[in-house]
């Protein structure tokens, strides 16, 4: 088992990269805006099907499709908030929660009608390529996804910390009435931030597709773990989302290795409980 420790650690880091991809958009939506976005998994599924359609119908490589899908998903996210979630939720947390749940049900079932329950995957020239690092064989597609996750985290952090729009988002999240008094329009900012969060899923979908499969249910595989990552890392913290995702990935892999694939999955919830007992705001969460 010791010989498997290093490969399992590396595997955990790469899996963590995948979780970070999905969690980054959520940390903005859930962590900053406090919208419990039940539609997150379904929108990831939409992004993955989008990338799949572009690859199979137009021959566009998923990596080349990242800007296009990020843009398209931003538009979808912005529109969803502006015309569905915002008006239905009316600022009430329960209303917003139910609205996102409704969106998830509609999207999942629309995908079932359009694509059936079948799982699909694509074969790109690099999908099965491996990078040899000593005794380790690392899937190239996962390395690229990991790098993509780090880049997105950096860009999001810079956007939120250094731009006026980022400051406006943070202001609205913390004090909507005060923000409105200084001329920020909260409804517009919410739609914008939701759109940016969903744009991250556009990139995530493209980066995931070469190493995973897509089906109408695929979002459910990631959404719960993404919520775990966001709370574990600290609500609204981008470095927290990355560190949380890596911790979850590594814990999951080592748990599965040493406790088996059936008992192993208890390790992540145990880690989650332990961290929240010691640091209720999460690893990187600001104490208010």
């Amino acid at each position, binding site marked *: 088992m010791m010989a498997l420790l290093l490969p399992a650690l590396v595997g955990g880091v790469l899996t963590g990269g995948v979780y970070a991809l999905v969690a980054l958009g959520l940390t903005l939506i859930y962590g900053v805006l406090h919208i419990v976005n039940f539609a997150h998994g379904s929108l990831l599924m939409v992004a993955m099907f989008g990338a799949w359609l572009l690859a199979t119908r137009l021959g566009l490589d998923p990596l080349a499709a990242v800007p296009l899908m990020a843009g398209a998903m931003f538009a979808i996210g912005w529109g969803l908030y502006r015309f569905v979630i915002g008006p239905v939720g009316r600022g009430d947390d329960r209303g917003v929660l139910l609205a996102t749940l409704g969106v998830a049900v509609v999207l999942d079932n629309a995908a079932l009608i359009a694509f*059936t*329950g*079948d*799982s699909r*995957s694509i*074969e790109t020239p690099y999908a099965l390529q*491996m990078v040899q690092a000593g005794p380790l064989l690392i899937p190239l597609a996962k390395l690229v996804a990991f790098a993509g996750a780090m880049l997105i985290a950096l860009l999001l952090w810079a956007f939120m910390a250094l731009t006026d729009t980022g400051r406006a988002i943070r202001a609205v999240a913390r004090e909507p009435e005060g923000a409105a008094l200084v001329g920020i329009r909260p409804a517009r900012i919410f739609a914008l931030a939701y759109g940016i969060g969903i744009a991250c899923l556009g990139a995530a979908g493209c980066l995931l597709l070469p190493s995973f499969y897509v089906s109408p249910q695929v979002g459910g595989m990631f959404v719960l773990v993404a919520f775990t990552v966001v709370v574990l890392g600290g609500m609204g913290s981008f470095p927290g989302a990355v560190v949380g995702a890596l911790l979850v990935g590594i814990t999951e892999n080592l748990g599965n290795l040493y406790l088996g*694939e059936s008992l192993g999955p208890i390790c992540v919830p145990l880690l989650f409980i332990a961290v929240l007992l010691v640091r209720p705001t999460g690893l990187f969460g600001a104490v208010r």
Partner: protein
Amino acid sequence: MPHMLTRRAALAAGAAALSLPAALRAQPAEVKIGMIHPVTGPLAFGGSQCRLGGMTAIEDINAAGGLRSLGGARLLAVPGDAQGKAEIAASLVDQMAEQKVAGITGCYASNLALAATQTAAKYNIPFSIDSGIADSITARGLANVFRFFPNNTTMTNQAIACLDALNKAAGGPAKTAVIVHENSEFGTSTAKLLGERLGTIGIAVKETIGHATPTRDFTNVVLRIKSAAPDLLLITNYPNEYQLLLRTVYQQKVNLVAAYSVSGGGFSLPFAKDQPQVSQFMIDYNHWHNPHDPRAIAFRKRIEDAGHVFGWEVLFGYFAVRVLADAIDRAGSIDPARVNPAFAASTFSDDWLPYGPTRFVQGQNQGARGLGLQIQDADIKAIWPAEFADAKPVFPRPRAS
């Protein structure tokens, strides 16, 4: 004057009905058939495929004039989505009982079928199992549960015989194995049976690894396989995990004499076509049609021409309804007290499966069997036994480069 015509037509029909013998008048114009499958959730693909098969059977039976003994009564599907959850499958049976279904088919997965048949037994509703393979489904002594298709013991015994024949023909290169299974009833029971039987053909099991459904990443499992360095990898799980596992086996360049599955959930034509490199030379012992029967070839073409994926689940769904309808037709009634004995006495033979004569013993058809299949150049070929084969086996497979 359409109003007058309608009334006249109605009166004429009423008069005609009154003149019929009482027995015929009592026959239903429609016979409801419940279909319970997971058409959403992680098992949605297989469940939808079974439902497609069932719907196609109903279409065929109705097109051929319905149930003759019931005055040409047409079959009406009452579909239900079990969502992959046993408690939902069971509650669907209650709903269908209220709707007075004459029989139920389902449920794609064994754990769903176990729950649904248990509930159906309360009402004595005839239950025709499609792809649930666990022996326990028919071995609990429920007089309303029938399986036309092979059970786990049959499939596993035949799968072992197939593996032994392939191995001996190649000079016995396979001596050790690792078994990977999903950890619900289907995977666990198959893995247990496989573990017991492999020793009898001189293959030692080095490790048995269980995993949950769904599992997102198989790197760990494959690393364990790699460190055990077996000649054979035996897999028994559902589609997504099946394909992710094989993809990781390919990526990690695990050298095997063969990767072999029994009732492999992911062994399908889309898998063969979407991932030709990963799926190449994968062997599965599974349910399949007789590739030499022209009716089977025509059926496959019909399904594919309609834009669907052809697979073994479609055959399960199709014939589960056909044998149930045959039993109702022979019973001449939808009364379970008459349909269940008729089902038990079935000698249904209007199929194009590689089966022997139909004979039910405690709800299990003794004539059912599977075939050894292999993916070769993005298509599924039958490789064992020779009488049903349409290709030669590739065993051992070429070494991973």
